[in-house]
C-alpha cells in the first residue's frame, strides 16, 4: 500500500510489482542500444526513454513533480515510459532477427518473464459474471429499480448502507442520498456532524434504531435501506417507517404517510 511519505523506490517497485523491473529496464536499454545500428527507430525510442527517465522518473524528478501534482498520483507518471510499447518493439525486432539463436533466446526470455513476473488480468478475479445490463451489483440494481418504480419517476431521498450507496445513482439520478462515497473526503465534503454520526451508526455492527430513524426522517429520507444481517437495537416500526420490501439481502423501510 502506498503511503503519503513513500519513497520513489517504494512507489516504483510497488507499481511494477517487484524489483525484477530494474533488470528488465537495463535489458531494454541495452537492447535499444544494440538495435540502434540496425534501425533508426530504436535510436528514437532510446532517446525518448532516456529523456523521459531524466525528466520524470527518478527521485529528483519526483521531488519536483510532487510539488505540482499530488504525491499519490505520481505513480501515473510511469505511464509516460510506455514500457509495453518499447518492450514489444524490442522483442519484435529480436524475434525477427536473422540469427536464429537470437530469436530463440528472445522467445524463451519473453516466456520466462511473462510466467514469472507477469500477472494475468483475467485470472485474478477482476471480472465477474454480469447479472444486469448496468453492470452494477445485482442487489443495488434491484433496489434502485424498486425505488424508481415505486416513486414513478419522482425524486426520492434514501439512506443507504455503504455496500450499495456507490451504485444507486448510477442507476438513476432521481435517487438522492444523504451522503455517498468518501463522506469525510475531498470529493464529497459533507460538513454536517449529524450526517457523520448517521454514517457511523449505519456502518456499526448494530443499527442504533432510535437515533438512525428519527434523524433520517428529519433529513427528509423517504426510504431507509438496512443490511438484513445487522441486528437492530429497537423496532423500526415505532419510528414512523413501515417495511416496504426485502431485496437482495436488504430491508427497505418507507416513511409512513401522514
Amino acid at each position: 500500500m502506498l503511503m503519503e511519505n513513500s519513497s520513489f523506490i517504494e512507489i516504483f517497485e510497488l507499481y511494477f510489482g517487484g524489483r525484477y523491473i530494474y533488470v528488465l529496464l537495463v535489458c531494454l536499454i541495452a537492447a535499444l542500444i544494440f538495435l540502434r545500428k540496425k534501425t533508426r527507430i530504436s535510436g528514437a525510442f532510446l532517446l525518448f526513454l532516456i529523456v523521459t527517465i531524466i525528466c520524470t522518473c527518478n527521485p529528483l524528478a519526483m521531488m519536483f513533480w510532487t510539488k505540482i501534482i499530488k504525491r499519490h498520483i505520481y505513480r501515473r507518471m510511469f505511464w509516460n515510459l510506455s514500457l509495453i510499447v518499447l518492450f514489444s518493439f524490442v522483442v519484435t525486432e529480436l524475434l525477427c532477427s536473422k540469427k536464429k539463436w537470437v530469436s530463440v533466446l528472445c522467445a524463451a526470455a519473453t516466456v520466462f518473464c511473462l510466467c514469472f513476473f507477469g500477472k494475468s488480468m483475467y485470472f485474478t478475479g477482476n471480472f465477474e459474471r454480469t447479472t444486469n445490463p448496468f453492470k452494477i451489483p445485482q442487489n443495488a440494481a434491484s433496489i434502485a429499480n424498486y425505488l424508481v418504480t415505486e416513486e414513478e419517476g419522482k425524486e426520492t431521498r434514501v439512506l443507504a448502507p455503504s455496500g450499495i450507496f456507490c451504485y444507486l445513482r448510477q442507476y438513476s439520478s432521481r435517487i438522492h442520498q444523504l451522503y455517498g462515497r468518501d463522506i469525510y473526503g475531498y470529493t464529497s465534503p459533507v460538513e454536517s456532524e449529524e450526517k457523520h454520526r448517521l454514517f457511523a451508526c449505519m456502518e456499526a455492527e448494530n443499527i442504533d434504531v432510535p437515533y438512525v430513524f428519527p434523524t433520517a426522517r428529519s433529513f427528509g429520507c423517504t426510504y431507509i435501506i438496512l443490511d438484513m444481517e445487522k441486528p437492530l437495537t429497537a423496532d423500526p416500526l415505532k419510528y414512523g417507517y413501515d417495511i416496504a420490501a426485502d431485496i437482495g439481502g436488504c430491508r427497505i423501510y418507507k416513511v409512513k404517510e401522514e
Partner: protein
Amino acid sequence: MGKVWSLVTLVFYLGAVPFLMGSLYVPQCRKLLSAVRSWGYGMITMMAAYQIVCVPLILLHRPLTETVILWHVLLAGWLAVCFFLRIKQKTGSGEDVCGKKWKNTEFILLGVLLFFVLSQCAFYALGMHVDDDDARYVANAVAAWETNTMFHFHPNNGEAMSYFMGEIGKEVTSPIMMYYAALSMLLRIHPTILCHTILPTVLLILSYCILWLLSDEIWPKERQKRLIFLILCAVFRIMGNTSTYTDASVILMRLWQGKALVPAVFLPFILVLYLRFYMKMEKPYPVLLLLTGNVAACLASGMGIYLTAIMTGCCAVALMIRQKSFRSGLPVLLCCIPNLCYAGIYLLILKVILR
C-alpha cells in the same frame, strides 16, 4: 424500434462520423487500412471538438443539449474544411506502401491477434468489473443525461451544487462524462450501459488502432513485424496486472474512465507523431494532429492534461537533442499550449472560484 435507433446512431456516431472527420489527415486512398487510420484520427478529433465547446458551456452553467448542438455545428464546420481541403489533395498518394499479398503466416498471426483483441473486448462486453470511482464518474453522466444539466448535482448525494465542489472542479476541464452523456442522449442508451459495455469495447479497438498506427510508423513495409508487435502488446497488457496502478490494468479493467484513455490512446498517439517528427516523414498535418490529440487528452482527464503535456515536452526535448537545434522541437513544444490553458482554467476554478 428503440434498439434499431440505438444501433443506427451507434454506427453513425462511432463509425461513419469519425471516419469522415479523420479523412483530412489521410491521403485519398481506397485501401481498408486508410479507412481504419481515418477512423482513429476522427475519434480523437471528435473528442477534441467536444472539449472545445463543452468547457466554456459548463462554466456558464448551460444545459447539455446546447453543448450537443454546438458540437454538431463544430463537427459540420470541420467536415466542410475536410471536404474543401481533400479536393485539393492528390489522389492515391499512398500511405499503404505495403500492398503485397498476405502470406499464410501473416494470416495465422492476424488470427492470433484477433483472438487476443476480441477476447479483451469480450471481457468488457460480457463481464463485469465493479469500480467505486464510478460513483462519481458514471453518476455524473447519468445526472447530466437525466436532468439535461452539466455538473449541477453532486454525484454522490444528488444535492444541487452552488459551486464545483471538490474533485468536480477537475472534471470541469476534463468533462469526458459529459461527452458520454451527450452520446447517451444521441444513441438513446442509458449512460451506465454505454459506459460499462459499449464504450470500452469501442475504445479498446481505438487503442489497438493507434498501436497499429504506431507499428505502421515503425515498420511501414513489414506486415509480419507489425502483427507480431500488436500481438505482443496485447499479451503484455493481459499479463501486466502487476499492480492495480499499471497502464495495462486501467486499460483492460476500466477503459471508460477518462484516465485509462490516456495510456490507451493518447500517449501512444503522441509516440506515433514523435516518430513522424523524428524520422522526418512527410505525412499531412502532424502538428495539427498533435494539437488535436492534446486537446482530446484534456477532455479525458486531469491526468490527460499533464501527462500528455509532459510527454509532448519530453518528445520535444528528444527532437531538439537529435537535431541539435531548438527550433526543431519548438512546434512540438507549442502543442502543449492547450494543456496549459486548461490547467490554468482548473487552477482558476480551484483557487479563485472555490475559495
